[in-house]
């Protein structure tokens, strides 16, 4: 399948209507758009809530708006107004996929339940905090409560402090990716079984609980809940170096040996007992001060490069300006701008590169209702 320009697109010709209002659902439809679907965002006249969500640029532009709404067209419709609702229903009647973040009672009140469309071939993807069934279906949630209910907050952060949610909107992104994958799987089923659409129900909390699965089963097999790490566990995460922080998460015996030799701690390198991670954990105080002192003389990229030569896994804590400056991401062509807005902001690339059907960023984030006239004409014609 190709678009007008002849570029193969995995989802060319697929029409998506997005009535959602959350980051997780917005990311689902953003990924559908990046794969070539025509995504029409239905917004209330006051605009998608992410347009009023910070952080903001000095110009007042919302960062989440630019990120989550890009690559879509926008039409403003007040779903509580009968005439507007009729337009929305016409749009949905011509769509392959409907993306929603509304709770069951809200969809019912709007008259936009799956059953109300009477179309067995429609795919309707729900992305909500807790899912469309069960005792929490109507309960509000966001990335903070997802961190709490999925187990992640209980193990993020340090033992002497409060639990810590996953950073920023990472939970929403994960749910958006999962919902995208589930939606394309259901689309593929419908390709092979004409008329067989369905509802796909993805709960952000459940996706994050699934990403927590190893921690849960390990706790069950040992009878003890995994806890937050102690603040001084230098092999569990980033520790200070001369110009920032650096993670020396040494998982194998030879990583320890080669890293200690590089740091000039030959006696620790040669002591074979330290090759076992349980031994390192148990005897942390015998080396941690010396390792910290040795690391404090290194710059993070120098240490990264020297360890890479020795094929030791290690990671410098990099910030956005540093990531932008890496030759690696530049060489892989990671950075991109919207094709219709070459002077606009630079975006990060897709999560994975597809050789035959690359994901593309064709459109800037639309203004509220930017395509209202265009889309209305398409409905009427």
């Amino acid at each position, binding site marked *: 399948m190709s678009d007008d320009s002849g570029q193969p697109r995995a989802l060319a010709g697929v029409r998506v209507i997005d009535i959602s209002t959350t980051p997780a659902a917005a990311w689902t439809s953003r990924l559908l758009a990046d794969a070539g679907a025509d995504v029409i965002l239905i917004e209330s006249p006051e605009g998608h809530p992410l347009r009023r*969500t*910070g952080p903001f640029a000095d110009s007042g*532009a919302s*960062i989440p708006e*630019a*990120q989550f709404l890009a690559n879509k067209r926008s039409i403003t419709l007040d779903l509580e107004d009968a005439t507007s609702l009729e337009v929305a229903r016409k749009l949905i009647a011509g769509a392959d996929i409907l993306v929603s973040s509304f709770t069951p009672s809200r969809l019912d009140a709007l008259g936009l339940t799956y059953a109300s469309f009477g179309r067995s071939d429609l795919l309707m993807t729900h992305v909500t905090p807790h*899912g469309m*069934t069960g*005792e929490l279906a109507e309960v509000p949630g966001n990335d*903070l409560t997802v961190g709490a*209910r999925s*187990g992640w*907050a*209980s*193990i*993020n952060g*340090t033992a002497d402090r*409060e*639990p*810590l*949610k996953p950073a920023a909107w*990472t939970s929403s992104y994960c749910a958006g990716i999962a*919902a995208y*994958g*589930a939606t*394309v*799987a*259901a689309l593929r089923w419908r*390709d092979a079984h004409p008329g067989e659409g*369905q*509802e*796909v129900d*993805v709960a952000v909390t459940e*996706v994050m*609980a699934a990403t927590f699965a190893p921690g849960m*089963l390990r*706790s*069950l*097999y040992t009878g*003890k*809940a995994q806890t937050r790490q102690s603040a001084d566990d230098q092999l569990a995460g980033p520790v200070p170096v001369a110009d920032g*922080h650096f*993670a020396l*998460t040494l*998982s194998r015996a030879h990583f320890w040996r080669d890293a200690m030799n590089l740091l000039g701690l030959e006696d620790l390198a040669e002591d074979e007992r330290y090759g076992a991670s349980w031994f390192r954990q148990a005897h942390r105080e015998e080396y941690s001060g010396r390792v910290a002192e040795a690391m404090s003389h290194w710059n993070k990229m120098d240490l990264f490069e020297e360890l890479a030569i020795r094929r030791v896994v290690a*990671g410098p*804590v*990099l910030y956005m300006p540093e990531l932008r400056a890496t*030759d690696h*991401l530049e060489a*892989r062509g990671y950075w991109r701008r919207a094709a219709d807005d070459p002077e606009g*902001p630079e*975006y*990060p690339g897709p999560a*994975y*590169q*597809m*050789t*035959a*059907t690359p994901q593309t960023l064709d459109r800037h984030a639309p203004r509220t209702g930017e395509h209202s006239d265009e889309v209305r004409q398409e409905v009427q014609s």
Partner: protein
Amino acid sequence: MSGPLSGTRGIVLTQAWAGSWCTSLLGQMGADVVQIEVRKRPDSWRGDYAAPIPSQLRDRPSAVNPWNCNPLYNSVNLGKRCITLDLGTEEGMAVFKRLLTFADFCAENFSPRVLGNFGITYEQMCEIKPDIVLASLSAYGHSGPWTNIPGIGGTIEPSSGMSGMLGYEGGPPLNSGQMFPDAIAALNGVAGIVTALRHRDLTGQGQYIDLSMMESSLASVGDAYLEYSMTGRQRPRLGNHHPSFAPHSIYPANGDQQWVAIACEDESQWGALAATAGQGWADDARFSSMASRKANEAALDEAIAAWTSGQDRDALASRLCAVGVIAAPVLDALELAEDANLRAREVIRDIDHPEAGVFPQVTLPMHFSRTKPAAPRPAPQQGQHNHEVLAELLDMSADEVDALIRSGVSGGGPPD
């Protein structure tokens, strides 16, 4: 009932977390996923062949092989079959290549040079199965100057920009409590493979998916990159706070390690919280609008913590949820396993493993109304399906499979 990927088969070389969980999710969606494992280099998440049996399994007579009783392996390999083949032998590779002709997709997460060393790059796979979909999940991708730098979740989290975002306000950067980038890569791998399968169905053309864990992690804090590109600023670590909304944090409840998350995204939620608390917050000028609450967030958090700290966690969270406040108890790993809602929705299910016994596990977090998948198989024992798969796909007799086992090409457990 069958999942949306029923009728699709993967012959996969995945391991550890990212690759294994990616192909597990595809299996739980109904694909027939056959995991190939090499006994000489067992999946690192099976642990050491000589490792001790976990404490809660020690009294089970069935729990005899540590490599089949590792919680890490058993948590991310639901829904698959496993056969062992030594790909370093001519015979093992020949069997693998015959199996590949029955595959719709393959996935692997070796270091980038390994497939080439085996002689099974994407191009070489295409000679065997022209429309194959292959996904490679690697630390830094299969091109670019960092291609051959090794990495794991714990080192990709810092190098991708994620650790720089995670941490308490004013505190140092942190890694997540377990290697989150692996899980992100797995979800993206599913997305890529399913997309490629649809394209193949419509066009007959397979393709190669090059997934860099660094890029998939960075994409999941992509808004922070965009913030840098639009403002020149690196977003600071925010702890549990939100750029716009306040309150938005985790507060102490009564008891050891009892915590409750509370957030208000609009004035009606704030009004409900203030009314429930009855502490006069609604009349406090410092808290009169979202902007003023955000400006006085330290005082706000202090007031809320003072109110929550003597209260029962679950009762408080329920009261707040009932009036529309965004709230939740902070569950630990053992509480999660018993979560009534996740059990009712069949995301957490009791899974019976032949050696480890019955334990709750997190299964597929996607619900399909028409193509509802069956409950997943437990994680396979090493080589559990050698006879079954080789007979079914290659029509090999039991004697032929036994010969492979005797020669060490297949089999189970530590190599002789």
